[in-house]
């Protein structure tokens, strides 16, 4: 098992949006998808997923509907709305800028100053 990192506050929403952007998912599926796409490197307290999901639905970034899953159980599926897609793009860009900035900051050598 790879070493796991606690996720940064505020990044859970981004991860959820990303996971759902790859196709409609139900709650546990989102968790699995995040584990899968992060190669199991991120640690999420499972319950924390749900308040985040409800908040995103309320913000109109996700929409939820009840449907039957492949094993014939009534399941709540989430998918991205167009507002959600837009938000995801913004967050991705913001994240990348942040990462680039932090990375370059960390790479700084004494002689560069």
């Amino acid at each position, binding site marked *: 098992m790879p070493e796991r990192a606690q996720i940064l506050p505020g990044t859970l929403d981004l991860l959820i949006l990303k996971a759902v952007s790859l196709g409609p998912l139900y709650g546990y599926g989102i968790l699995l998808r995040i584990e899968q796409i992060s190669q199991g490197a991120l640690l999420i307290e*499972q319950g924390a997923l749900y308040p985040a999901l409800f908040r995103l639905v*309320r913000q*109109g970034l996700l929409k939820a509907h009840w449907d039957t899953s492949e094993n014939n159980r009534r399941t709540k599926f989430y998918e991205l709305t167009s507002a959600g897609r837009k938000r995801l793009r913004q967050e991705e860009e913001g994240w990348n800028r942040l990462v680039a900035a932090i990375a370059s900051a960390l790479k700084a050598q004494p002689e560069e100053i």
Partner: protein
Amino acid sequence: MRVFASLRSVVSALFHRSLVENEIEEELRAHIQDRANDLERSGVPRAEAERRARLEFGGYEKYKEEIREAQGTHFLETLIQDLRFGLRMLRKSPGFTAVAILTLALGIGANAAIFTMMNGLMLHTLPVRDPRQLVEILHHYPDDPEPGFNGFSWDAYQIMRDGNHVLSDLVIGSLNVYVVGGHALESQTVFGGNVGGTFFESLGVRPAIGRLIGPLDIKDSSAVAVVSWSFWKSRFNLNPSIVGEKIIASGTPVTIIGVTQRGFYGLSNQAQQDIWLPFSLGDRSSPGFSVGLLGRLKPGVSIQQARADLATLFQTANDRPDANPFMRRMELRIAPAGNGVSTPVSQMLSTPLTALMATVALLLLLACANLAVLLLARGASRQHEMAVRVCLGAARARLLRQTLTESLLLSLIGSALGIFLAYFAADGLIRLFASGRFIMGLPVRFDVLKHPDTRVLLFTGTIALLTGLLCGAAPAMSASNTIPASALQPGSKIGETKRQRLFGKGLVASQVALSLVLVSLAGLFVGYLSQLRNHLGFERNNLLLVTLDFAQSGYNASQFSHLSQELVMRLNAIPGVSSATFSSVSPMEGPGASSFAFAEDHPEKTTPVSINYIAPDYFETYGTPFLAGRDFSAPDQAGSRVAIVNEAAARECFGNGNPIGRHITLSHITLTKGEKTYEVVGVVGDAKYNDLKQPAPPTIYADLLQEGFIGSQLAIRTRIDPGGVVSAVRQAEADVLKAVPIVRMMGMNEQIDSTIVPQRLIATLSAGFGVLGALLAAIGLYALLAYTVAGRTHEIGVRMALGAAGTDVIRIVLRDAVWMVCAGLAIGAPLAFWGKRVAASLIPNLPVAGPFPIVLAAAIMIAVGLIAVYLPARRAMRVDPLVALRYE
């Protein structure tokens, strides 16, 4: 889009609460289940897998709570929380709660009561076509603010109908009272109308059955009638055979030709009209003929334009040589009739209600200020609590909301109680109205004046909300501004700023000011009422009035002369009766005969005079003094015409000369033509005739028996309470005048009061409001001082320990109180003067000269202030320095 989504989630959260709750549960359980299944597949035993799944999920209830918050149900839940907490706080201090709720209930209740009546009286539109276009044509005395009279001669009607440019329609329709009976019906007094042929058509009223009165009925003078749907239902049980039924309306046999559509009740909201008869065209040339007129304004025409146009035509009609000279003094008034024509009820009530509405608004303002002071004082004592809550992380907005919720809760409970009180208050007021002259005994629909409808509830709800916000705002701000550090310091003087203290004092001062206005107005109105009830020119106590109905008796004048004298003798023999007399009218009963008088040598100077036909002993019975000459006596009956005049008539007709033995001529006696000349044999003091508000008019008293008239008014002067002779009087009357029923028996006081219902209403209510206002101011002052003293207990203790005497301590308390009262009086006095001017503009003849009521009110407010100060001052004086200092 997002707003929409969040709104939808709130709404669905609110309405599908349990459904949503179940879905959350289902979703979370499914998650744990899936996880457990996965773990099991990876080889963990089932029980262990489920345990680990739950563990990995984390705090199940905590996340559920977070989900709920994320969903936005927060508001409702906090509201319920706030309400529950608010109720608990109110229960905790029952004294404060009771005073606060009662204050608001009285303030809001008074507003609801008056508004209910205004609503019933002035705000309902009539159920007819385009009611807003309807106007009533009235004539009134110059400068008389009363609406006036809707009665015009045939000529005036025709001239106005044919010559005007402002009305699309001018129809005849008046409000009358009929006694309706017939072979199948029990006799009943109902409202009805004399209408023209286009009345129903113009109003857009259709028949429910049969047909309505049309132009042909007028032309042919048909003996027909139309009745209302409710009459049809209550008296004929909706039986269609009503058409063709013969009934008797006030002595006239008529045939019912139709029923008006359901919901039509005539031209007034208070007087359900049940029967309409065609007006009698045949009488149009008789001098007493008059028709009520209802106009429909052309689109875009204003009331002023209509008045200007019609007034010219009215003038033209009055300039005709055969016009009634009385009408020449009258002015035309056009009044909107969309909310109903003026009726005795509306005439009596609209001005007082408008004045009262303003007064109760003032009262509510006062109640608001009072509650704000109470809440501020209580807020100060709760600063510690607020400080603790701020320290524990309560958001200031949350505290603000909590305090506002509490004040809104108070105002809501207060207004619920207020509506309840309003119903009874309106009921009591209606009883007062029902005792009014011209209304007494009539089937007026007073219930419309006391039943709160949606508009009333909406109004009350709105003012309750405003009240709650208004009186809660200041305390809420101060609560949310709590500074924990200072408030939590042990023994700290309650952490309020100077500004807050000043604000509290300002509120109390404004209460004193408002109360001053209310109390001085009350003094004004009560003084006016007592002025009206006295200086009458006759003695009103111990005077019993009996109204007789000779109509069906068949007595002629000589029989009446004989029987009336016999009855008077019988009455004089009753123990307790000192004298008795007959007359054609009694004072304040209603208008009697009138005419124009001139002295023998001055035919060019005519004076309008009131006439009363009286039997001997009239002045002795009424207690009006003889100034000169003599009373009528038996020999006059066969002699030449004699009259007694009052001082005003003597002065008008004869100047300063002695009128005894001179002659006076009366012309146009009550719309008749021809003249009569009398020799003046006596002069009596002036006495009010028909209107207490006006000075006694010039009055001519002629001899009832000499004229050969029948007098239906019997007056009995008693030495004991009139109630004690009533049965003996009934007996004597029944013995002597067998065929003459007694219509009414009442004391003179009652008859007087029946003519001044609006004045009594205003005086009674304003006195009540004055007392209430003073009480509220006292409570406010008391509350503020009490809490100041409580806050300064420590300081007072130190002062006393250092040797201050009780009087010094009292001075501290008193200084504040005196400042507040004085500031209040200083602000209130100009307001009170202004209030007096407004009152005078609404109520003519109000004795507004002199500062007396305001001075009196100021004295009362000072006394009230002293009483309010007493308890806090005593408490301050009794502060035990040892106890006060031990707190530290």
